[in-house]
């Protein structure tokens, strides 16, 4: 992974971020003067109650949505002033997304879903195809599934294909918005294992979740309330069945009044 040796490098830096929505006459502030730094190689988990603005924050960070004010510096670039098309180009190079609803393109095969992203940034087609194949193997999707359509596979398989599509361009940050929210427990574990493996390889990840089991996979948990970071907890590196980490997270969440 790029810069994996530089663990303390600041990848993403947010200052005085505000995001409000206008509904009718009322203006609703969701993100309120928020400051945040994301370090290279971290597996950051964003938690908070439903409607706290977790998704809103995630999509502002990733240049998917424009903040009302404030600055976001990502890979040394201030992306807040970018036009929609410039943001698209930025996203394809630097960001990967995994959604709760998975959102595979349902009119094409899994392989083509991955390649739709992979071929967008240029580079040799053969190499991209090879990388996609390697990633599919890595997330445990055997070759017979590559030709299948999203409607022909299970949710867990689909989400793993979604992860392949998200990381095929070696993004600086992998953004995930409740990636296991729609999956059963068995499928969730398989997907979370992929995240853990990617994280071990040095992939920076920012994941929104309201599920404790998922949150345990991260090394840093941020709690959002009233549009600000209400609390933060350093869990250290994930290891399976680590009771100390579980206790630490439980204590933190209790403190946060979760």
């Amino acid at each position, binding site marked *: 992974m790029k810069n994996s040796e530089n663990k303390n490098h600041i990848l993403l830096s947010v200052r005085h971020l505000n995001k409000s929505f206008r509904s009718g006459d009322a203006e609703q502030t969701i993100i309120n003067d928020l400051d945040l730094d994301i370090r290279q190689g971290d597996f950051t988990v964003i938690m908070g109650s439903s409607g706290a603005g977790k998704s809103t924050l995630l999509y502002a960070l990733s240049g998917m949505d424009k903040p009302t004010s404030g600055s976001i510096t990502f890979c040394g670039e201030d992306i807040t002033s970018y036009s929609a*098309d410039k943001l698209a180009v930025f996203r394809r190079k630097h960001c990967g997304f995994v959604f709760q609803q998975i959102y595979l*393109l349902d009119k094409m095969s899994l392989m083509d879903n991955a390649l739709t992203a992979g071929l967008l940034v240029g580079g040799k087609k053969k190499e991209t195809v090879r990388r996609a194949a390697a990633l599919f193997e890595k997330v445990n999707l055997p070759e017979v599934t590559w030709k299948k359509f999203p409607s022909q596979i299970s949710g867990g398989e689909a989400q793993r294909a979604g992860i392949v599509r998200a990381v095929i361009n070696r993004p600086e940050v992998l953004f995930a918005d409740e990636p296991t929210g729609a999956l059963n427990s068995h499928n969730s574990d398989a997907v979370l294992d992929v995240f853990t493996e990617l994280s071990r390889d040095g992939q920076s990840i920012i994941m929104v979740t309201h599920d404790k089991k998922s949150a345990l996979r991260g090394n840093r948990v941020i709690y959002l309330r009233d549009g600000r970071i209400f609390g933060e907890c350093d869990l250290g590196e994930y290891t399976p069945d680590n009771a100390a980490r579980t206790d630490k997270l439980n204590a933190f969440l209790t403190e946060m009044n979760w």
Partner: protein
Amino acid sequence: MKQISHLSHYFFRKDKKQILSFGMIILITALILHLALVLALRIDPAYDRLSDELHSADIDMVIPQMTDSPALSDAVRRHPSVEQFEQQRAILQKAVMKDFRGTDFELNILFYNWDDPRAIHRLSCRRRSKEAVQNPIYLPLYIAEFGEYAPGETITFSIGGKDFSYTVAGVVQEMQYGNASAELMGVFLPDAQYRQLAQALESGEVVNYAVRTGEGADRQTVLTDLRKTAEEKQAPVLFAMTRESRKQSRMMVTNLLTVILAAFAVIVLLVSIFLCRFRIKTTVAEEMAQMGVLKSLGFTSGGIIAAEVLPYTAAALLFSVLGVALSYGLLPTLVNVLALQAGFRFDVAYSPAALILTVALLTVVTLVFTWLSAGRIRRLLPIAAIRGVTDGRGMKKNRFPLAKTPGSVHFTLMLKQMAVSARQNVLLFVVLFVMTILIAFSGSLFYNGIIRPDHLMNTLSDESPDVILQVSSSDIVGMKRAIGSLDGAEKVLSYAIRQVQVGDENAVAFVCEDFSQTQNDGCYEGQNPVSGREIAIGSALAERLGCGVGDTAVVTYGDTSRSYRIVGLVQSVNNRGEICELTDQGFAALSGGKETHSLYVYLKNSADADGFIEKAKTACGGEIVSAVNAAKKQREAQSLYMGIITVVIAVIFAVTALIVLLILFVIIRSMMTQCRQEFGIYKAIGYSGRQLVAQTAGSLMPVTVAAALSSALLGLVWLPAVNHAIFGMVGAMKNHMEQPVGILLLFAAAEIAVTLLISVLLARPIKKIEAYSLIKE
């Protein structure tokens, strides 16, 4: 019922804009269809009604007054099919009308006596000059309106070099002659003016036998009988026509237009059928889950279908009524133009039949096709619909796999998008295909009427040199040499146009020393005459005389008759095929060789015909009786055609663009509803708005190109047939129209470019779909 109207309302709100564009297309269809129907249903009966009202003759036959006799009128009266007849005296002259629509116009004119009582061919005075005028004349509608002579204005006839001027006292509606394609026209002088003219001219006094036959008589047969009778009584028939031939020449343009409008309406109707089919099928696919829920709630298939069909049928009803209303806005203009060239006024009347036919046809067609298209709802199991288990159309196979398809990812995605949109491809193909039929037709018009105007002109007109010289010298050969040696002359031909009889039929004879030198070869079968014993005859003559190449024909000129071998068939739109061609020697044998012919002069630079005429007058002075700048006349006629063609092409392109716009609007709208999420995902992955617009517009292009090109190339096959049919209607057996592939492809390319432009513009809102909207949903 209440639930259904509720549901219907929902479908309407959801598809408002698409239903609106469907309505627009129905409106266009209704407009065109209604115009065609009104023309078909109203003008023809109006023509007949007016003919009856004015007590028009079934047969007209003009003979010199000197040869009229009680014996002849008795014989006519005794003919079993003759019910009533009247001898109308007149003065027949070949006259040039000065300043006829800005130019000089030469025509055979019958000057009638306005004060003679008339039982047949009554005249109805439409417009009168407000004050009494000096030297009054009454003009038929055609001359007054097409020639632009208003009551109170002056009209001058130049007859044999003398000018006769009159003031227009009134405009009459007559159903005896008609328009320019009849070679005869009647005008009406009060008794005093009539006598003056007769005295001044001392010639040309004729009698028109206006004959009314009984019901069911075959007018052509009766005419042949009467012709024979006249000849037996030593009365040469100068002109003759039946009610049918008159009507045909007056109604030609109207009929042509009706056919073209009807064809146009059918094409647009086809488009609207495919459009509503497409919309219904798309809605069913989009609303699959909804329908499942509705069914599980207990809605019957019939109820859901009715709710779906209702908005479209209602739109068809509403917009076809609007289209009809709109067509009443256009009708007066259209009818005016038609009246102008047909020479009879037709009052735009409300036609319940046309209205009902238009509205009923469009509404029923919409109802039937939407109903059939919605049939799939019946086969939908509620649970399958809710789960979204569709028939898996387009999902069976991963077309254009990205790993294997060569080319850029954008191009492949475009192909993929195209491959999964079967329904929309069908619609697009059909629309582009049928619209290209019109485009190809306009391409053919453009080439033959504007790039190579000679093609159209040669088809419609007779031999036309640059300058026509009337010479007095008897030494025609010497004159020919003198004129031919002048600077700028390319060749000179001796040419004459005479009125003769072939068999029993009147015909115009074209006499030329060498037909192989002429520029407009009207021969469509066999060949032009070469020797003095050979003749080529016109299509109408061949048909009426029942003879063809190899037979013989007897030609009468004055008192002399002679037989010729028919070597070819020739056409003449101007003379409705009533012509023949004779060589100089061939005609000399009839005329005694004393007549002087005109000289047809062809110039190297036809633009300088006026300069050449000056030169010729200086060189040969007194020997030139008259000189006509025929090139200019030809150019004027040509520019009139070009104007019409330009308008037709512009209208075709505008209508095509409008229909393509409406169709693409529906297609792209449907795409944006169906693929909204997909576009969001693409954006999240990092595709820019511009790329998605290009991909979407691009995905429509392969079908567009295929439809436009195949239809345009197919034009190579059907255009000759259509041209043959159209020009055949006006009597041109052979036309000079060509269909160059280049022009057809060029026009198809223009259409494709317009389609691309419209799709890009319509797809632009895709830019506004945010990746972020994924999360909001």
